[in-house]
């Protein structure tokens, strides 16, 4: 049911019944290594190209999620996913492997939550029983498409961010009653494209912060909820600069969040001593941290309600060279633990 201008309420509470998360060598050395299902010690993952390795990350994450859910690929009605590579080829190729009816989606690094919102909406209205959704990125493949060759010795400024190698996928079910102890998707706010005139591709956090603030603000406007309702409001990949900027923007809009209540996946995934400049980025940043780390915390009872706000910078290498500004988007999805409520 639509609530307000741009928010959906999912009264049938589609459940996230299992997740699969894969990562690369840099993530294996990170803070959240334990929350990954599969970690590779080689960026190539024994494949011929970064793009094939990228595809493998997706396939393995989907496989891990299906295994944990105890489902076969034939049981899944739709596959909703995306990545950052031209024409979504890694995801398209993974979809070829699985042969599940497929929506390829692109919101740059906000793809994970766009997929989750769409999946929950389809399930909520009884248009499917099981959906697999997620997003992925590969450091080598993304760097070479958007920036320079991986071995090029250019100096990155302190505002730059590190693209996560990984994939995070979730299996969702409309049969809430069968999964009483799993987290549910309760609402989603779809963001609009915001462009505040930033044009530095090495400062994506600064460009994306207004989109995140705008979507979070819209979420509370539409739902009438108090910000304190959520134990955690987590952004996808704002990094240090984007996070503190968004915090100030929200305060200006009258939404005061505690430092601990407002976290960023891009700051959670790596250790302090890893050379990632301002933090992590990439479609896999939100996908791996939310579907791996944060959902685990929810099941342990550490978090009851969280609002996941994935942010995406909708730039391309061409628009950067043509001196265009960076349009950005953010989608917010609320995930909650509601144990015991049977339908």
């Amino acid at each position: 049911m639509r609530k307000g201008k741009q928010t959906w309420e999912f009264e049938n509470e589609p459940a996230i019944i299992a997740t699969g998360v894969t990562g690369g060598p840099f993530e294996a050395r990170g803070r959240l290594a334990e929350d990954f299902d599969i970690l590779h010690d080689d960026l190539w993952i024994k494949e011929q190209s970064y793009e094939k390795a990228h595809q493998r990350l997706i396939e393995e994450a989907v496989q891990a999620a299906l295994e944990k859910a105890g489902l076969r690929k034939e049981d899944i009605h739709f596959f909703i996913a995306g990545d950052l590579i031209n024409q979504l080829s890694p995801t398209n190729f993974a979809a070829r492997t699985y042969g599940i009816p497929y929506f390829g989606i692109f919101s740059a690094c906000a793809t994970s939550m766009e997929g989750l919102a769409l999946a929950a909406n389809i399930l909520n209205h009884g248009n499917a029983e099981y959906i697999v959704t997620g997003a992925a990125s590969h450091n080598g493949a993304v760097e070479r498409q958007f920036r320079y060759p991986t071995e090029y010795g250019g100096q990155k400024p302190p505002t730059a961010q590190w693209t996560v190698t990984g994939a995070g996928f979730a299996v969702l079910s409309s049969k809430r009653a069968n999964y009483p102890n799993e987290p549910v998707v309760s609402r989603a706010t779809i963001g609009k494209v915001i462009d505040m005139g930033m044009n530095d591709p090495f400062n994506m956090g600064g460009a994306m912060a207004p989109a995140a603030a705008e979507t979070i603000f819209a979420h509370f406007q539409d739902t009438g909820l108090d910000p304190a309702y959520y134990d955690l409001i987590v952004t996808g990949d704002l990094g240090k600069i984007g996070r503190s900027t968004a915090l100030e923007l929200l305060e200006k809009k009258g939404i005061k969040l505690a430092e601990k209540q407002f976290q960023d996946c891009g700051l959670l995934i790596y250790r302090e001593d890893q050379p990632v400049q301002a933090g992590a980025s990439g479609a896999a940043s939100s996908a791996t941290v939310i579907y791996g780390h944060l959902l685990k915390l929810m099941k342990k009872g550490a978090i009851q309600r969280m609002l996941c706000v994935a942010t995406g910078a909708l730039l391309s290498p061409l628009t950067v060279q043509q001196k265009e500004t960076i349009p950005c988007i953010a989608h917010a999805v609320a995930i909650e633990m509601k144990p015991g409520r049977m339908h």
Partner: protein
Amino acid sequence: MANPKKTPEQKEYEKLEKKHEVKRPIWRNCLTAFWVGGLFCVVGQAITYFYIYFFNFTEKTASNPTVATMIFLSMVLTGFGIYDHIGQFAGAGSAVPVTGFGNAVISAAIEHRTEGFVLGVGSNMFKLAGSVILFGVFSAFVVSLVKTILSYWGG
């Protein structure tokens, strides 16, 4: 339209964002670039002396094999994935010397090996270094043209 004028709202945001931005440490970068770049030159000088004392080169002719050796070293360091770390640390210090040029060429060549030798390595090798070559040759042409004209007038 690229770069239309910023709206007042955008300007205001730019100001707000700047407060949170971590600035490039310019003085530290300059200093590191200076001593690392200098170190590269010391290595180059040592190689020049090596060619002069152990082979039959003069101070003038030793520069060619020196440059070749430096580029070879840069190629090896790039191939083993070390040069990009030096680059992150040293900035211009490792980008300006000829080794930086070598790194730009070889990193692109390695990167596009997956698309084959002709369409991959062949057509992408000078992706970054191409403009250096173009404008290097062009400015050499302009300078020599000016020199020729001046010396013609100067008779």
